[in-house]
């Protein structure tokens, strides 16, 4: 409808709108409970080769953050710094800090086994042990002596399988070999194994890249469900997957963090041209 007053005065400048959205995003981040994972000025080296450059990043509690970027950009390397999985690779070196709930995980005296209980990991290729379904999930509970009775052990296994949305499919064959499960089921079993020790953060390195669309959908639904209880960081090459499951997205390029933003902003109007070129397929 025509209005008697000028519409021009009411037209907000794009810059103003963008600034408002950025402020809203920052305020939202600040209003959340202090960051679950806080990384500052992180450098990572494979021997003399520097793979990560001055990465600073906060991951809030109970959100899903996706890491995207081309192969070799350092996103998996960075993921593995969050629970010191890179420690197992000879010749690697870390500088800077990674804090979980304010505690520096690289501080001397850190119990790495306890760290990895708190910060679980799921890999690209499902890697169940050649044991029964039950024993796979019970493994971490047993070696960490986290249960005091067989009943409690069974309850925790059931809880983990339920939370991994696998219980209805395996409850009648817990003694069957884990290797008899389908690829998608094996990956959910690995998630159940990670959940059994009640971690606080779950790192997922391309957890659905080897799965068919239906199994992928189940994993994605599971990720969205799990964020009610856990903080989840996922590396994915599938940008639609990042858009579907994550609340925030970080874009890495050549070992640098180019942009971290709300996923909505990232996929509709990223701040950096490099990010835009990557997600629109005009990279390189």
């Amino acid at each position, binding site marked *: 409808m025509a209005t008697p007053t*000028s519409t021009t005065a009411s*037209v907000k*400048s794009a810059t103003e709108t*963008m600034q408002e959205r950025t402020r809203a995003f920052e305020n939202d981040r600040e209003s959340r409970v202090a960051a679950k994972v806080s990384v500052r000025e992180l450098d990572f080296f494979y021997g003399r080769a520097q793979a990560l450059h001055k990465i600073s990043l906060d991951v809030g509690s109970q959100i899903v953050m996706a890491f995207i970027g081309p192969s070799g950009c350092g996103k998996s390397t960075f993921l593995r710094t969050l629970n010191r999985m890179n420690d197992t690779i000879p010749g690697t070196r870390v500088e800077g800090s990674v804090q979980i709930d304010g505690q520096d995980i690289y501080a001397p005296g850190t119990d790495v086994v306890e760290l990895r209980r708190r910060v679980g990991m799921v890999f690209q290729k499902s890697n169940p042990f050649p044991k029964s379904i039950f024993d796979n999930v019970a493994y971490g509970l047993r070696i960490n002596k986290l249960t005091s009775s067989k009943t409690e052990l069974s309850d925790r296994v059931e809880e983990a399988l339920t939370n991994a949305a696998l219980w209805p499919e395996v409850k009648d064959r817990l003694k069957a070999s884990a290797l008899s499960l389908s690829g998608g089921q094996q990956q959910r079993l690995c998630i159940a194994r990670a959940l059994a020790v009640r971690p606080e953060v779950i790192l997922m390195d391309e957890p659905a890249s080897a799965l068919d669309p239906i199994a992928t959908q189940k994993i994605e639904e599971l990720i969205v469900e799990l964020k009610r209880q856990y903080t989840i960081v996922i590396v994915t090459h599938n940008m639609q997957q990042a858009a579907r499951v994550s609340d925030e997205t970080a874009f890495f390029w050549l070992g640098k963090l180019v942009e971290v933003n709300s996923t909505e902003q990232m996929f*509709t109007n990223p701040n950096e041209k490099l990010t835009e070129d990557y997600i*629109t*397929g005009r990279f390189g």
Partner: protein
Amino acid sequence: MELHRLLDRDLEMLRDRVLLLGGETETALQKAMYALIERDTVTAREVLDGDDEIDRLEVEIDRLCVDTIALRQPAARDLRFVISVAKITPILERIADHACNIARVAVDLNDEPQLKPYVDLPRMAEFASGMLRAALDAFTSGDAAAARAVIERDDQIDQLYNRIFRDLIEMMVSNPTTTTRAARLLFVTKHIERIGDYVTDICELTVYMTEAAFIKHSN
């Protein structure tokens, strides 16, 4: 062939089609106003006959937008472009419908004596037509500043609408025998006023496409 080439091809096709639709719509509006002002019934009928092509283009662009989203999964500026095209297309089709309505009035009025020489009405139509052309140019070049400038011009259409409205009402009151013709002309002015609003919508979408800023209803 790389995937982004396929996407670019689709985006280019969408751009071509929406510009074609914009051109057809602009022509329909100009011809409808010419038919009214010059009392040319033949041209009015051309406008009505041409509407099928505009409808066909609308459906074609709709399909292309859906296919592009489903098959290419555009993101960021590409996504904003496809969404803008999908929203601009029905606006252009509605502008063309208004042009048809003006053409129908022209056919009716051309059978009767002219009410009075048209002065403000052609000016109003020229404004609307110029706005539409400028809006399509701004969209094509992704020029948000130009789009904002077009939005400003809608006030002039509104002012002319109010003036013509008052004149026609006065005419009806002072000479009731003019009521039917004056009422038809009132409809014409309303159609043009609505076209101005639709052009504003196109410009708001151009700003969204270019800057990802939602300025609609921002007052």
